[in-house]
C-alpha cells in the first residue's frame, strides 16, 4: 500500500507528536520522523506542515543562533497544540481500532 497517501491524513498528528517530545527545527523534525519509521515523508511536506501548524497557533517558534552554521528556527508545542494533539490522538486510536477490527488484526494500544 502507498503509505504516502495514508500519511497525508496524519502528518499533522505525527509532527505534533514529534515536536511535543522536544522542540525542533525543520530538518530535525524530518530526521526524527524518519527515525520513528516514517520513511516516505517528503522534507517539504514536513516544513510546510510546521509552517501551517505555526500559522494556526498550535506551535510556537523561536530562532536559535548557531556558532558555526546559520541560525535555526525552532518550533515548540503550546497549549493549543497539545489540545489538538490529544484530540487527534484519540481520533486516530479510535480509527486505528476500527480498522484493526475490520481487518481482524491485533491493534497495539
Amino acid at each position, binding site marked *: 500500500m502507498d503509505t504516502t497517501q495514508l500519511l497525508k491524513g496524519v502528518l499533522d498528528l505525527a509532527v505534533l507528536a514529534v515536536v511535543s517530545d522536544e522542540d525542533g527545527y525543520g*530538518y530535525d523534525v*524530518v530526521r526524527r520522523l524518519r527515525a520513528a519509521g516514517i520513511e516516505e515523508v517528503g*522534507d*517539504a*511536506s514536513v516544513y510546510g*506542515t510546521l509552517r*501551517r501548524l505555526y500559522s494556526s497557533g498550535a506551535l510556537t517558534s523561536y530562532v536559535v543562533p548557531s556558532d558555526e552554521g546559520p541560525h535555526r528556527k525552532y518550533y515548540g508545542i503550546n497549549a493549543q497544540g497539545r489540545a489538538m494533539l490529544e484530540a487527534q490522538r484519540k481520533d486516530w486510536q479510535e480509527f486505528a481500532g476500527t480498522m484493526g477490527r475490520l481487518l481482524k488484526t491485533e491493534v497495539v494500544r
Partner: protein
Amino acid sequence: MSVLDTTDALDVAGYAAAVRRSLADLGPEQVDDLTDDLEADLAEALDDERHVAHGRGVLEQFGPPEEYAAELRAAAGLAPATAAARSGLPMGDPVQDARRLGRWTLRRLRAQAWWPPVESFLVALRPVWWLLRGWVVYQLVASMAGVSGWFPHNLPAFLVLVGFVVLSVQWGRGAWFRGSSVAWVATTANVVAVVAVLPLLGSAQDWLGDREAVYDSYQAGVLGGGDPQTIIQDKAVDGVVVDGMQVSNLFVYDAEGNPLTDVQVYDDRGRPVRTTFDNGFEQYWFPEATEPWSFVSRVDSDGRARWNVYPLQGAPTSEFTYDDEGLQVLPSGSTATTPPWPFAKAPALDDAPDAAIGAEGPVPSPTSTP
C-alpha cells in the same frame, strides 16, 4: 561530515533560489516564512543522505525544485501556483476556480455510498461522449460552412466527420495531443463541445420537427397550392362518381326533358351500374332534406334484387324496421317512393341526334345511359 563542499553549497543555493522562484506569487513575506531555513535544511539533509546514498546531487535527492515548492505550499495549506496569480488577476483564474469546484464536487460525491457504481457507469459511457464530441465539432464546422443536417450528404463532408471523430476518440484514449503545446487546443475543443452539445441537439430536434411538419403538410396536400388532390386508393371506387364525389342516385330525363322512372342502367359490358352497395342499410342525405333516406331494391322477373333501377326508391330511414333476418325493410303500409327530383323537367334536346353531343345547359344535365 558537517561541512559541505563548494559544489554542494552552490547546488543548494541554486536549488533554494529555484524553489523561491516557484513560490514568488505568494509574496515576499510568505516566501520568507516558508523558506527561512531552506538552505540549512537542504544542506543538512544532503549531508545526512551521504551515509546512505553517496554522491547523490541535490536534484536526485529532492526532485525538481518546482515539485518541492508545490509540496511545500500544499503542506502549508496554501493554494497551488496559478496562472492567475502570475498574471495578477485580482479575481482569480476562472478556469482554476472551475477545476477546484469540480474536484471539490467529485470529492463530495465520492463520499456518497451510491456514487461509485454511478461513476463507473459514467466512465463506461465515456466513448459515447467521444463520438458525440466528434460529431458536435463537425456540426459546428459544418454550420460555419453553411451545411446543415444531422449527417453529411457528400463524401468530403463525411470524411471531415470521420476525421473529427477519430481525433476525438484518439484524444479521449490518451493516444494523441499529450504534448502541452497542443493540449490546449483539444481542451478548448472539448469545452466548446460541452457548451454546444445541448443547443445543437435542440436545433437538430427542431430541424427534424420541421421535416416532419413538411412531410405532414405534403401528405395533407397543403404543398399542392390548392390544386385538386389525387386520392389514391388501393381499391378502385365502385359506383358512380361526379366531380370527385360519389353519387347515391341517378335521375333520368328523356329527350323532351321529362323525368323517367324505372330505368335500368348497365355499362358497356352489361354489368349493372350501381350507386349504392349497402343493400339498403346506409342512410343518405339529399340537398335540403330534413332527414336521411334509405333505399330499397326492385325485384326483377326472376326474383332477384336489382339496384341498378333509377331513380332508386326509398323512404326516410325512420320509417324502416328490421325483419326476422335483421334486414332493414319497409313495413307493410309504407311504400317506397322516389326521392325528390333535382328538377321537374330537364331542358329538351334538339331534334338532331348529333347536336346532343354539345348539349350543355346552365344546369348539368344527367345524360341517360343506354
